[in-house]
């Protein structure tokens, strides 16, 4: 593909690049985060692992200390070289509440978040919105609508998700490059409007 030509011959970021920006692609399990990242990325999406310590809900009476265990979270991500000086990384970030420590790390330095929503599983999006708000991320909603029949009207969706009027809602197909890019562009335009 034409737009990928710049980096097709190398896994490396061009030498002149000074800035690496980060956007989170968030949403519940199996909503299409990795698909969207793969659709937009110039490199085959990569997977890395972060280890996190999480405090379990109960306290171990024998030791009198919170029972901590280490879990591994897989992060899928992709890259877009956007100019001679700028690359953008898209990080898929799982939306479960138990990944809060991960969110703290991921949110730091992120420009914002694209929240993928499956209209047939709206309730699973609520905890993800809670996390977004907890970490103060600006976001836009991308409704991943594989099936036009399951489309909610935008007003219904806004009401169901209790969105603020300025939060953008776009419909997209995470498998389609143009459509996914439009969703990302909508997010950036929103971020610019909010930053002024």
């Amino acid at each position, binding site marked *: 593909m034409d*737009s990928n030509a710049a980096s097709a011959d*190398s*896994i*490396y*970021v*061009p*030498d002149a*690049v*000074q*800035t*690496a*920006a*980060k956007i989170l692609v968030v949403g519940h399990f199996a909503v299409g985060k990795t698909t969207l990242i793969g659709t937009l990325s110039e490199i085959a999406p*990569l*997977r*890395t*692992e*972060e*280890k996190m310590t999480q405090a379990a809900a109960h306290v171990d009476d024998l030791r009198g200390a919170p029972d901590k265990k280490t879990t*591994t979270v897989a*992060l899928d*991500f992709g*890259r*877009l070289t*956007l*100019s001679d*000086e*700028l*690359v*953008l*990384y898209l*990080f898929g970030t799982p939306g479960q509440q138990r990944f809060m420590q991960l969110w703290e*790390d*991921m949110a*730091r*330095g992120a*420009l*914002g978040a694209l929240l993928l929503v499956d209209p047939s599983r709206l309730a699973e999006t609520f905890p993800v919105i809670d996390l977004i708000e907890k970490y103060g991320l600006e976001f836009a909603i991308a409704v991943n609508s594989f099936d036009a029949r399951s489309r909610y009207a935008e007003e219904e969706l806004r009401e169901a998700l209790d969105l603020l009027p300025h939060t953008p809602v776009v419909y997209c197909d995470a498998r389609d*490059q*143009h459509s996914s*890019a*439009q969703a*990302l*562009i909508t997010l*950036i*335009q929103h*971020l*610019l409007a909010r*930053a*002024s």
Partner: protein
Amino acid sequence: MTAPGEEQPVTSGFIRSYVITNGRDLPDADGFSLVTLVTIAPDREPPARLSPELRSVWDLCSGGYLSVAEVAARLELPVGVVRLLLTDLADQGHLLRRAAPPPAQLVDRKILKEVLHGLQRRFG
């Protein structure tokens, strides 16, 4: 005597990380965020005795800039372990890095505009 559960297998991933780091605590993300770009400084010779993992980081990072996340993914090592290995190389003066925007900084309109124009150029 062996208590029940004591012989449960420890995952190979755990042993591997532990050996690579010599059991040292993993550094926090401050020095190397996921999108910090790193490369081996030009004209550097690898130290004579590099562990296999440091050698693999050296070889990968000698070719140009990559983000910390990419180094970890391409070497199939946990990010925390890669941060530690990169810290070792940085302490010895072998590493160049281009930092991501500092965390406390308000999102920069200039960066947002560059991202927007880049996306529109690429996909518009």
